[in-house]
């Protein structure tokens, strides 16, 4: 089984995906093939050599001049090195979506739109192996690219990419046709994720496919979109509507030293005077020692915020779907009364 979540104690084999990482933070995902070779600005790397090397070690180029690290693939590394077809979600947002939507192995998740597949990969990794992700995208080119990528990562059994405008046609795959296999998704989804230009139009559709107590998440960069979404969610009796903004603030650690600032003007002369007066000499030695100490003390290990960071990605709105509240017996009775009518 080739997959991003493969247990990697048994080493690498052909068909597996690995990440090649260079010291200048340049990462590439490749699938190993027999007789294959990887070419980049660092040189030529043979796939057979990568397999010999193993994870976490350096593989050398054919010229033996440059080297790259062989790393295990992961969803976080995928987010780092994927091809941007659209604006993507980054790790802080992704991790919040995964936790707040209570995704775990076995969950059934619906996503729209697929975009570059940054979040899709993370969801698929989390719901693997028994769960499933149904993802919708209205751009045909992106659908094809995403399908190819998911297959390479070994998620073809866990992700269904559908070419469809979810706002018009909804999320339910109950009609067989050009959309692919027929699957009734009504009342089945544990979570729905929306990243659309006008997400409030899709919430009614999302309501249909969500389970009772299922979670919905909307990602929108503009607060006006969020407002419309919240109104819509409230109208459909969603509860726990909470909106968050989450950003990562990276720091760089270093030893920071300052130059010694001395206020006395004729410091040099004072030191010369020292041998003449033994009593003072002791003090001055101390002073010199102090000065050195100060130099060392001033060089301290601290962390500095990175100069340029992402100032805004989007607002994440979460809510819980409520379909059947109360006691089960009463719900069943009500339902029967309705069907009798």
């Amino acid at each position, binding site marked *: 089984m080739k997959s991003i979540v493969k*247990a990697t*104690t048994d080493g690498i084999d052909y068909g597996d995906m690995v990440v090649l990482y260079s*010291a200048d933070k340049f990462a590439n995902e490749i699938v190993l093939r027999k007789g294959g070779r990887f070419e980049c600005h660092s040189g030529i790397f043979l796939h057979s050599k990568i397999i010999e090397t*193993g*994870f*976490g*070690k350096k593989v050398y180029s054919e010229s033996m001049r440059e080297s790259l690290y*062989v*790393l295990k693939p992961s969803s*976080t590394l995928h987010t780092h090195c994927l091809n941007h077809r659209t604006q993507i979600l980054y*790790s802080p947002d992704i*991790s*919040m979506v*995964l*936790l*707040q939507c*209570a995704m775990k*192995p076995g969950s059934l998740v619906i996503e729209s739109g697929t975009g570059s597949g940054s979040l899709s990969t993370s969801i698929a990794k*989390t719901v*693997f*192996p*028994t769960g499933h992700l149904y993802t919708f995208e209205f751009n045909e080119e992106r659908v094809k690219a995403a399908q190819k990528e998911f297959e390479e990562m070994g998620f073809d059994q866990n992700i269904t990419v559908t070419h469809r405008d979810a706002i018009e046609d909804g999320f339910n795959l109950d009609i067989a046709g050009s959309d692919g296999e027929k699957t009734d998704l009504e*009342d089945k989804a544990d979570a729905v994720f929306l990243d659309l230009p006008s997400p409030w139009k899709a919430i*009614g559709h999302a*309501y249909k496919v969500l389970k*009772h*107590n299922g979670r919905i998440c909307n990602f929108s960069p503009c*607060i006006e979109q*969020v*407002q419309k979404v*919240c*109104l*819509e969610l409230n*109208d*459909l*009796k*969603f*509860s726990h509507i909470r*909106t*968050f*903004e*989450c*950003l990562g*603030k*990276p*720091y760089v*650690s270093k030893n920071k030293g300052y130059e010694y600032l001395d206020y006395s003007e004729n410091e040099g002369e004072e030191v010369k005077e020292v041998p003449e007066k033994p009593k003072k000499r002791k003090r001055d030695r101390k002073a010199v020692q102090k000065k050195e100490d100060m130099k060392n003390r001033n060089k301290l*290990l*601290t*962390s500095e915020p990175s100069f340029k960071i992402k100032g805004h990605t989007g*607002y994440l709105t979460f809510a819980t779907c409520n*379909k*059947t*509240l*109360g*006691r*089960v017996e009463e*719900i069943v009775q009500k*339902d029967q009364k*309705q069907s009798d009518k």
Partner: protein
Amino acid sequence: MEAQEPVEADTKESQIVKKREAKLVQKMEEIKEMNQRTTNTIIKPTSTVKSNVIKEGDRVLLVSNSGKSLIAKMKPSKKYKIGNFFVMGEEIIGCTYGTILENKNKQTIIKEDIYTLDQDIHSLEVNTEINNDNREIYAVNENQKLSYEEIEYRKSIGIRGQELIDDIVQNSETFNKRTKFSQEKYLKRLKKKHLNYVELRYPSLHHICDFVYDNVDNKSLKLRHDALGYILNSTNLSCKSTSLVIENTKGVVTAGVVERMNEQGIIYKLSLPDGESNNVNGEIMHMNKLSNVEGDNIEFINYRQLKKKNEESIELRKKLQASCSSCIIVHDKHSPKDLFSIAQEFLQYSCYVAVHSQFMHPLAELEKYLNDMGLAVMIRLEELFTREYQVLPLRTHPHMVTTHSSGYILSFITIEAGR
């Protein structure tokens, strides 16, 4: 001429306002239509609903409207107390998760009109004109005609909840002078104080994390939900991982790891010799108390046992040697650098590690150590900046009070040492 200009501007503005209003009315109608469409298909006792019913022995998070909460295992004959709300287990068992229970006339009934704890207090009308302002409102005690004793008397003769709130509002002199937004705020405060209801929530990981963050004493490490999510995501956990967990968050992190690994794979939980985490059973019991997660695949390892030189511990060491594919360190009693050097020999190459600390400097030390020894790549020291927003028409802004920091997280991927 000068006098006419503002009038013209006024009419233009009013036209725009009218257009907007018309649009909003149209929008509200659309929403109503949609509501009707969806409400027709609401009730359906499918199999998925059945899995959302509270059964005996389930753990339920009970949250009262005054903010008090409790996680409890359901027994029919047991009485649960949340703030001043009492409820029997048998009244909870059989309800679906998300149901809200209300105390009325010494009886527990299911609240139907309110779906959430905090939304009912806000009107979501969009075109609320701001007619009033606070120019004539003075902070005087006479504003409220009812005295404390009178309110207490009303309570004693059985006027409670909504009735009492209506009474208080009627006796407030300033209430009608307030703006609509201000009235809502006033009502919100009263409702929090005088209404009495409890919501039954499923103890999902994010609810547990919030519960622990808000409730457990200051002694335990504070881990906010965003940090927990980030740690779980950045360590590449999946159902096939072998992970090493060193934590003293009373089982919150372990519960998260167990949930992400679906009770498959292997979790090694390393306990260190310091009072609290020596009591392994207590900790796992605490974790079980919080969540419905079982965690049969956790293997407990005591650091002291590991250090011994008998055959058993040598074998254990051999078994653990370079076996873990992910590692989480969330511990505030020891320095991250020390903890990592303990864990180091058990990690595979290309192992995903996340270390959390409330302080930045200890993590910077670890980062320097990793850089100097060439032990890792993709080293990232990060702090998460998370803000929650109040989203209401014309009143959207970040929450006034928020928790400042969720600590710092150092995440990296281990490699073969040497440069």
